[in-house]
């Protein structure tokens, strides 16, 4: 993120707020903090934020219910709900009511960082008007749903294609297992077993067999898609 982005934190628990602020500042962004819903809504409308990290059970009400007021006030910020209401039903409800992402507490710093990066990136990403996503010798054709490494076709299953597309859209960023489960499989519960690892492992082996080490395990909680652009 070249220039400094502003992120608003609406959170009544001081410890959590400090942890979120640490993540935000660690990413090179600046953070404002409000600890009531009213103050948060007022700040969201008054200042142009890129992302708002919004709690749910706040003094003054539920953050999910306040999203409509924030939008009505003219804010274009992307909203990440960060809440103790973390069951699948809560998450689906939040997303259906217009949240851009929903992270349950307790959360890990890595997870929050990955989510915030994805949101910041979404805010700046150009609409992909062309059909081709190219990373050096790795090429993804969206309409034909094909993957090529060094001009050799790599056979992928439909799910693997969705997986590599999601990776490609977040190239260079850490992508967590939870993000993959939510965005590629549209499942909002923790299945307990790391089912995602098996799928990523298969895709990764196919790419490696074709000569691309694009998918790597990231330290901590996920994967990173980092093809070496320009390498032969």
């Amino acid at each position: 993120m070249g220039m400094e982005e502003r992120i608003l934190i609406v959170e009544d628990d001081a410890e959590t707020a400090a942890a979120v602020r640490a993540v935000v500042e660690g990413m090179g962004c600046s953070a404002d903090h409000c600890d009531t819903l009213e103050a948060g809504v007022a700040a969201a409308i008054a200042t142009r934020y890129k992302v708002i990290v919004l709690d749910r059970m706040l003094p003054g009400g539920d953050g999910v219910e306040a999203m409509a007021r924030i939008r009505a006030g003219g804010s274009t910020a992307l909203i990440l709900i960060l809440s103790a209401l973390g069951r699948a039903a809560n998450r689906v409800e939040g997303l259906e009511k217009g949240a851009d992402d929903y992270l349950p507490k307790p959360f890990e710093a890595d997870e929050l960082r990955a989510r915030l990066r994805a949101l910041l990136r979404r805010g700046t990403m150009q609409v992909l008007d062309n059909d081709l996503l190219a990373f050096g010798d790795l090429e993804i054709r969206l309409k034909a749903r094909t993957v090529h490494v060094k001009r050799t076709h790599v056979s992928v299953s439909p799910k693997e294609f969705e997986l590599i597309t999601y990776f490609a859209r977040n190239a260079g960023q850490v992508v967590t297992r939870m993000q993959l489960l939510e965005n590629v499989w549209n499942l909002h519960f923790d299945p307990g077993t790391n089912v995602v690892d098996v799928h990523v492992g298969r895709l990764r082996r196919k790419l490696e067999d074709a000569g691309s080490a694009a998918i790597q395990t990231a330290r901590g909680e996920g994967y990173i898609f980092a093809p070496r652009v320009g390498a032969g």
Partner: protein
Amino acid sequence: MAARATLRLAALMALAVTALSLGAMGLQYRLVETRLMAAQRALLAADLGGFGALYEQRRIIALRQAIDYRATAATGEEMLLLLDRQGRVLAGTRQGWPVGLTAKGDGFGVEPVETLEEGGTRWLVAARELPGGFPLLVARSLRPVDDTLAAMRRGMLGLVAAMLVAGGLVGWLAARSVMGRIGRVNDLADRVAEGALDARLPGPRSEDEFGLLETHVHAMLDRIQNLNRATHRLSDTIAHELRTPLNRMLQKLGRIEGQEELTADLKAEMRQAIRMFDSLLDISRAEADQGTGGGLVPVDLSAVCAEVWDLYEPLAEDKGLEAQATIAPGLRVLGDRNLMAQVLSNLLDNAIKYCSTGDRVSLTLEEAGDRHLMRVADTGPGLPEDIRGEAFERFVRAERDRGIKGHGLGLALVRAIAARHGARMTMPEGAGGFTLEIHWPRLQQSD
């Protein structure tokens, strides 16, 4: 459904009123009958008195002349006959003595008197044998009495019929009105049973027993709804109050450096604990919502099955299991996609966890009558005998499986979610391994 109780009550009342009226009319009938008979008797007595006076003056001759005279001017309302000693007719309105009638007494008093039926007409008869052996017959027709009584009987019958019809009509109208009032309450109960806990009767309450019933039903529904809301609020509060301290712990854990393995273990344990109490909350929420249709939308069950199978199949293959899915396309149910996916995820996760290399895991989805049958089967060790009956209870785990990761909530959650969707579960035995069938109610065309 007909308002049988109301109809019975109305019929009883109609019958009682009719019976009372019938009694009253019967009394009146008796009275009229007695009066009319008395009148005919008086006429007969007058006739006899007249003849008696003539007999006093000139005996049989005068009597014969008088009877002759009366016979020529006969109206048909009287019967007169005088015979001589040999039984020949001296005078009268008829040609012979009625068969079977014997003369009684010799005076001109009205007693003894008897009734005689002849040619469909009843007569009040005084039969005498005058001194010297002259039989005399004086009789009055009872036709006017009988005609009047017959008319009365017809009237009574008509009235009874009219009363019964009226009673039936009133009963039907009352039943209809009661049914209308009770029907509102019944419809409300049906809507609530289908899950619309917030359904209420519109309009004002009337100030009668039905209004009171509606008020009571409303109060009861308010209470149920409040309890349901309290359950929901409580699970939210538990989530908040437990997750916030866990969150602080996790943040602090993140600051520990140099003991990566230990912190990773701790994080995994915390994740497990959260999963466990999420499952508990999901179970109680699903149980609280059981029977309510709220929050359920049409979902393509086939697609959910295909997606979750797609997620788990590589896991099964990597473990050396033979995995097979047969999913009929386009089967839809009214449901919650995430909950249904969780059911399947729990079942497949279990199957893969307990099976060993070479075992078979299969998922089948097919139409079965008015249900969609989802079957997850494996050839693994199956449920041990000691927990067979209670495998779907919370925290029930077999002694045998202590070494395998799990918290004993997976099947309890499966059962709660199935019940939330109105689905039936069966566990066919005999094939070996573990097989669970869930019969989801299919989506009606109108939904």
